[in-house]
Structure formats: C-alpha cells, structure tokens
C-alpha cells in the first residue's frame, strides 16, 4: 500500500513536468499546425545548458531555469523566422520532416559540444528525501515538480490574462481575421514558437536533475510527448496537462510493477490505442473540408 501511494505521488510529480513540456508542444501545434519533432531535442539542450551553468558557474540547476528558459526562447524565435516561416503554407508533413531534421542537427551539435557520454547534474540535495510517515519523497523530485507547476501556471497566465495571450488565441482560431484586426500573426507565431520551446527548455533544466541524459535521449522524450499530446487531443493545453498526469502514472506503474524495460513501450502503445479508438485521426475533430480554397 505504501509502495503504491509513493508510486502515485512520484508519478504525479513527474506528470507535472511532462505537463509543462507537452503544453509547449501542443501550443505550437494549436497556433501554427506544426508538429515540432525537435521538441525533445530542445529539452535535452535545456539539460545540457543547465549542466554547464551548474558545472562551470556552480549555479543551482533549478535556479538555472531563469537563464535556460530565455536562451531556448530566443533560439526558438530565431528558428521560426529562419526555418519554419518559409514553409508555413507547405503540407504538414513537410514541417514534420523539417523539425525532424532540426532534431538530428541539434542532437549532432550536442554530441560535438558535450560528448555522447551519459551526463547527470547532481546538486547537494539530490540524494536527500522528505519523509512523510513511511513515504520517501526525493527532494529533487519535489522541487522539480513544484517548479514545473509554477512555470506552467505562468504560461497559463500569459495565455489567458494578457493581450499577447488573446492575440495568440485569435491567431490560432483564424489567422487571416487576426491579421485584419491588427494582429501581426508572424510576430505572434515567432513568439509562440519561442514560448513552446522555452517550455521544453525549462522542462530540461528540471529533468536534468532527475535523470541522466545523452544527446540521443531526445527520441524517448519526443515519443513520450507525442503520446501525451495525442492522448489529450493535439492543440489542447488542458488536454495535454490532464493526459500528462495520466501518462506519468501509466509509465511509473509499468516501470515499478512490470519492468523498466517495458516502460519505454508505453508511449508507443498509447499512440496505437488512441488511433484504434479514434480512427478519424489523432488531430482532433475532422473539419469541414469542402470549403478548401482552390
């Protein structure tokens, strides 16, 4: 019983981190219909930047979020302007291939800069735990999960309470009408791409403390993230948050009660299950498509 409670609490903490990163992915899709396959790669980039800050400057990795996030945001803004914008009217498969290429390049660059050996960030509290009765909660997990929720709330406030948030939602609903009422959709899209990646970067700073990583870890992450957003309905942030929590539980329970080796199969199994149940596809409801412009 204790083991189960502990497992559930830990998986909810992990789920909070998943929720943050997946929100970024689903936000990008919702506004610009781009499935950013490089999302996992930017999370790992967040890990490595945090590692360098901690290793070279002695900065606490969780405080490092303050630097990691804006850096990855800026990178996302530039990438949108240079690479994504030119093909915004191309079929969605083109942007999938493009961001896939971006993921490979990012992986290669990280390998050249930081090497391909397993890296971990180990601040002083990494081996300490909180004790609640007979439940052990590692401090890093607790801090990390809480920080993730904090950043997620910040993102949510930006999207719902600010002018930028309204502009983003307007651009998502109808780009040409948004242009007509004076929203610069290009600028908004670049900001959204930056924000989405920043969420991945922040998530990277947090998970870097929890798990060791190599440049190639991004495949596991993108599989996980895609499964989460697919389960929650692509484009829906609320759905992503909810399914991230469910996913965190499914993954942790599989790892604890079956075997960690099979936990990696969970995301792929979910993608197939969702598709079997919802044959119209993973991208939410089918829209009226007889009105497509010639």
């Amino acid at each position, binding site marked *: 019983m204790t083991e189960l409670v502990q497992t559930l609490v830990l998986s909810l903490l992990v789920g909070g981190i998943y929720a943050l990163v997946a929100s970024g992915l689903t936000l990008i899709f919702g506004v610009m219909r781009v499935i950013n396959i490089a999302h996992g790669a930017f999370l790992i980039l967040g890990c490595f930047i945090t590692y360098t800050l901690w290793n070279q400057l002695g900065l606490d990795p969780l405080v490092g979020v303050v630097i990691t996030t804006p850096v990855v945001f800026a990178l996302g803004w530039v990438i949108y302007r240079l690479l994504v914008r030119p093909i915004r009217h191309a079929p969605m498969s083109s942007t999938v291939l*493009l961001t896939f290429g971006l993921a490979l390049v990012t*992986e290669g660059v990280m*390998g050249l800069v930081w090497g391909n050996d397993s890296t971990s960030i180990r601040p002083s509290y990494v081996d300490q735990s909180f004790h609640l009765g007979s439940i052990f909660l590692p401090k890093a997990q607790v801090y990390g999960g809480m920080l993730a929720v904090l950043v997620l709330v910040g993102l949510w406030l930006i999207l719902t309470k600010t002018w930028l948030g309204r502009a983003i939602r307007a651009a998502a609903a109808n780009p040409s009408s948004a242009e007509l009422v004076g929203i610069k959709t290009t600028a908004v899209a670049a900001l959204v791409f930056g924000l989405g990646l920043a969420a991945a970067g922040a998530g990277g700073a947090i998970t870097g403390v929890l798990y060791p990583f190599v440049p190639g870890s991004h495949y596991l992450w993108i*599989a996980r993230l*895609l499964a989460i957003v697919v389960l929650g309905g692509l484009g829906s942030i609320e759905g992503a948050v909810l399914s991230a929590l469910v996913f965190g539980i499914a993954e942790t329970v599989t790892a604890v009660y079956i075997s960690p080796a099979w936990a990696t199969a969970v995301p792929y199994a979910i993608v197939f299950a969702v598709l079997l149940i919802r044959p119209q596809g993973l991208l939410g409801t089918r829209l009226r498509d*007889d009105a497509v412009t*010639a």
Partner: protein
Amino acid sequence: MSAPDAATAEVAPPRRGRSTIWLGRGLVAVAAVLLLAYPMLSDDLYYQNMIIFSLVFAIAASGLSIITGLAGYVSLGQGAFIGLGGFTVGILATRHPDTSVWLWVPLAGVVAGLVALVLGAVALRASGPSFVIITVAFLFLVQVIAINWRSLTGGTEGLSLPIPTWDVDIQNWPFYYTLVGILALQILLSWWIRRTKLGTGLVAIREDETKAATVGINLPIEKMIAFVASSVLVGMAGGVYGYYLTFIDPRGMFNILLSVETMLALLVGGKATLWGPVLGAFIVEPLNQYANNNLGGGNTRLLLFGGMLIVIVLFLPNGVLPAVESGLERLRTRGRAGLVGARIGTGGSLASLTDRLSLADREAVVDPPPLLEIKDLRKAFGGLKAVDGASFTVPEGSITGLIGPNGSGKTTLFNLIDDTIHADGGEIWLAGERIDRLSPWARAHRGLGRTFQITRLFREMTVLENVVAPQRSFTWGQLGRIAVSGPEARAAEEILEYVGMRAFRDQKAAALSFGQQKLVELAQVLMLDPKLILLDEPAGGINPVLIDRMTEMIRELNSYGKTFLIVEHNMPFVLGLCDPVHVLGRGRTMASGTPAEIQKDPAVVDAYLGDDFVLEAAATERQEVRNR
C-alpha cells in the same frame, strides 16, 4: 464543330521533349551496365561495400516512393521493414544452420508484407502528420520488443549469422547481384503501379483524399496495396543486408537513421519519380560513408542527415531529378507560347455514352419513379443544425433544382448525399437501394457523381489523368488496368472532347482557369458513367458563354438518360432548366414544385427570392397586360 476549334483541339503538345526522354533512357542504360559490370572490372572491396549499402537504400527508397511518392503518406518507419527482413533471416538461419540462408530471403519479404498489412490496417486510417507519428511509433515499438524478446532476437547482444561459405574469389558477388535483382524487381513494380488505375488512384489520394473517394476510389484497399507493395521487396533486401552484415542487433537494425536515410534518398532524388529514389540512394549513402570514415562518424552523420533534410524541405522540395528535368524543359521550350489562351472547344459526340444507351421514351412514363430519395436527413455541427430533417425526391430522368438562401444547407446536403460528410441520421435511397451506410466510393459505384462548388481537381495531375482517375467499380482486374494509354485513355479523351477541353489534355489541372476546371470536373464525373449527377453551382463564377454551353450540355446529357440534381443561385438558369425545384430553408425542404409554382410560393418569395423578383417571362407578360 467549326474549323478553328478543330484546329486548336489537335495541338495537344507532347508531355516531355523526346530528346529529354531519350537522354534519360540513355543515362539509365549506361548506369545499369556500369552497375552490372562493376564487380568484374574492379576488386576494390571498399567500393563494392559502398554499392551494396547503396543498393539496399535504393530498394528501400524505391519502395517508399509508392506509399510516399504516389499516395502521399510520409512514412518514417520504412527502416523497420529492413530490420524485420534482417531478423527473419537471422532468426531462421541461426536455428537451421544446415539450410542455405538464401532460402529465407523470400520469407523475409513475406514477413515484411504481412506486418505492413497489419500496420497499414491501423495506421492508414490516419492521414498526414498523424501517419508519420504512427510509423515512427511503430519503428520504436518493434525495437523495444526486439530488445526485450531476448529468446528470439538475442536482445542487445544480437545474433551472429553463418559466415558465407563460397569461394573468396567471387568476394561479395552473391550479395551484390541478389540486391541488383531485387532492385530491378522493385523498379519494375513501381513503374507498373504508376501506369495502372491503381497508380492514378494513389496519386488522386495524395492530391485530395476526400475527393478521390467521391470518384469511386476505394481508399483503404488501395492504400493497403500501396503499403504492402512498399515493403515486401524491402523486407527481402533487409534479409540480404542482415546476411551481408553477419551480425545484427535491434539497436542497429531498427535504428531510426535507416528510415531517415531512406527518406532522404527519396527526397533528394525526387519523390514522385521512378529513378529519383535510386539516384538519391547513390548520392546519400556514399556521403554517409564519407562522413562516417573521414569526418568523425556519429555526430557528423547526424549533422549531415539533419542538415540535408532541412535543406531539401526548404529549397528543393521536389528533389534533384524534377529540378534537372524542368530546367532542361525550360531550355527546350524557351520562346514558345503555351496553351494558356487556347479556346475551349465546342464539343463532340459522346459515343461512349450514347452507344450504351437504351433511350427511354420518357413521354410514355407519366410518373417516373424517384431515382434519389432523401428522408429526414440530419446533420449538426456542434449546436448548428445545418441539415435538419430534409426530405425530397429526385425523379428519374429529371433535372431537379435545389435552391435556398446562403447557409440553408445545400452544399452540406450534397456532402451528406455523397458521404463527404457523414450524416447524423435519416435515409438516402438511390435507385431503390438504401445507400446511407455505404462508403463514398460504394455510392459512386452505384451511380452517383458529384461536382464541387469550388472545383476540386487533382491539381498536380494533368487534365487527362484527372479524367482517367475515377473508378466505376471495384475489381482487382480494374486496378491493374493501364490507365495512361489504351481504352481508358481513349474514353477519357472522348469525354474531354465533348466538354471541349481535349486541347488541354496534358496541362496540369492547377494551371486551368476556374471555368475550365468546372468543365474538367464534369468530364471526370461523366467518366464514372453515373445515373445521377449532383452539380454544385455549375454556373457560379463562369462567363455567360460558358453558362450557355453548360446549360446545353446538361440538357443533352439529360436526353441521354442522365438525371441531375443542381444547386445554383443563378435563378434564370435554375428556373429555366430545372423541373421540379426544391427550396431549402434552415436545413429543411420548405417548398417543392414546378418553377412556376415556386415563384408564386409566398414563403419562398419571402425567404429567398424577394418580392421584387421577376423572371423575364413573367415581366414581359405583365408588360403585355399593361399595354392592353
């Protein structure tokens, strides 16, 4: 037909310059001879090895060109079939050490084909980017299973295959020539598919899947065939590849980079071409080996593949071959005018329709039976009831009109009738058979044809290809029929002649004007030889001369026995042509009757026509009364 029009009808230009074709054929022949002769001319194992790897990717990319190039489904899981083939051979060879390993190679193809069949049944229900996600998920899932199923695959330690026993003098020739043979088969298969009705069907699916279904293309079956055809020979190549490596493990054989390299080979060469994938493989694999051996391996390889993927998507989306070809074409045709301004022909006879015709004496039939019957049809989009209990009939042999204000549900109703959108409830009967549970293609096979308000041609296909794409019924034999020449093409040309668009036969559909597209779309529907033709605003957005021609054709086709249901806002057009006319308001039929009755119906005048609406005839009549 007047003389000048006859002249324009004959200037159909050749599709590609003869010289370009012969240049291409010559290059292919030279390359084939070099490939076959190379092992005999040189004993350099480094290059032999490089060619063997390139051959594997050439086969994989050529296979991929069927599902991705023709049908437009981007798969990043193609590498999984290489791995499955490799492991099929590996597992069987290690368990039966006394049997020749070559025996298992065809079996590797069968396994790959079966897996493709199962995966396709699930994955091909999704489209576009979802399909990419699923194929990647599939690849990783297979890898996880292979790693964890140690008793079968050896897990991370992998499997060691028997070392080849033949004479060292012939080096790797058996691998080399087997792969050349498989490549030849794959190219033959790809070549044959793109010439058949199946091939045009697949391209139609790529261009506009919903529309493809309405012209009778059986989506799931044709996509499945394409997916299996993309994987069987790749599985065999994977088997040979595994044998050649003599050591295989799940991390290597199901590496995503195999899929990426296959995709790159396809994109670099040209995804919709026959030889592009082969060319691409022989560009990408040598680069890959160079990066691996001379530039530091792993990470450089990632930069190379990732960078190439980005550059291709951004700057060369069609690949090298099409770019070269269109460059040559531009040189060849410089200074010569295109067909853009050519006149539309005035039509020819429709022997293909009239021959089959048993001209019904409609004067004798007093009360014709309904061909189409709509009963209480309903469709809601969220809270909006677009079609809310519409019921009406279309009598056989009639030209029935359907009018109503904007947003009254006319186009939605059409979409429900041909299942472009699925109805929430109600019944649809066609010629005494209930069709509302049938797929769009099954409805097309039963005699339903439909044009769209905003034309939906397959934009990247030529006019002729657009017209041969429809499939009147589903038979396996028909799928294998050659589409681009022979009887199918002749029938299509005849119909094009009839609508006056034969001169435009080899133009891309996207290059046509809106009015011309309407004519081609009508020809496309006629190719289905439908009993009932639904026309969505046939007179919308086209010039008056063309409207007259359209009226004329509808009348003529009607006299051949075709029944029409027409949605149109052009009142003189509708009221002059149609009888009966149904009026739709708020998703319901609010009135039905002859044009004269409709014009007098106060509800219709109030909701739609407006009280100042008078037809010319009515106006003159009143004028005469006043004059008296």
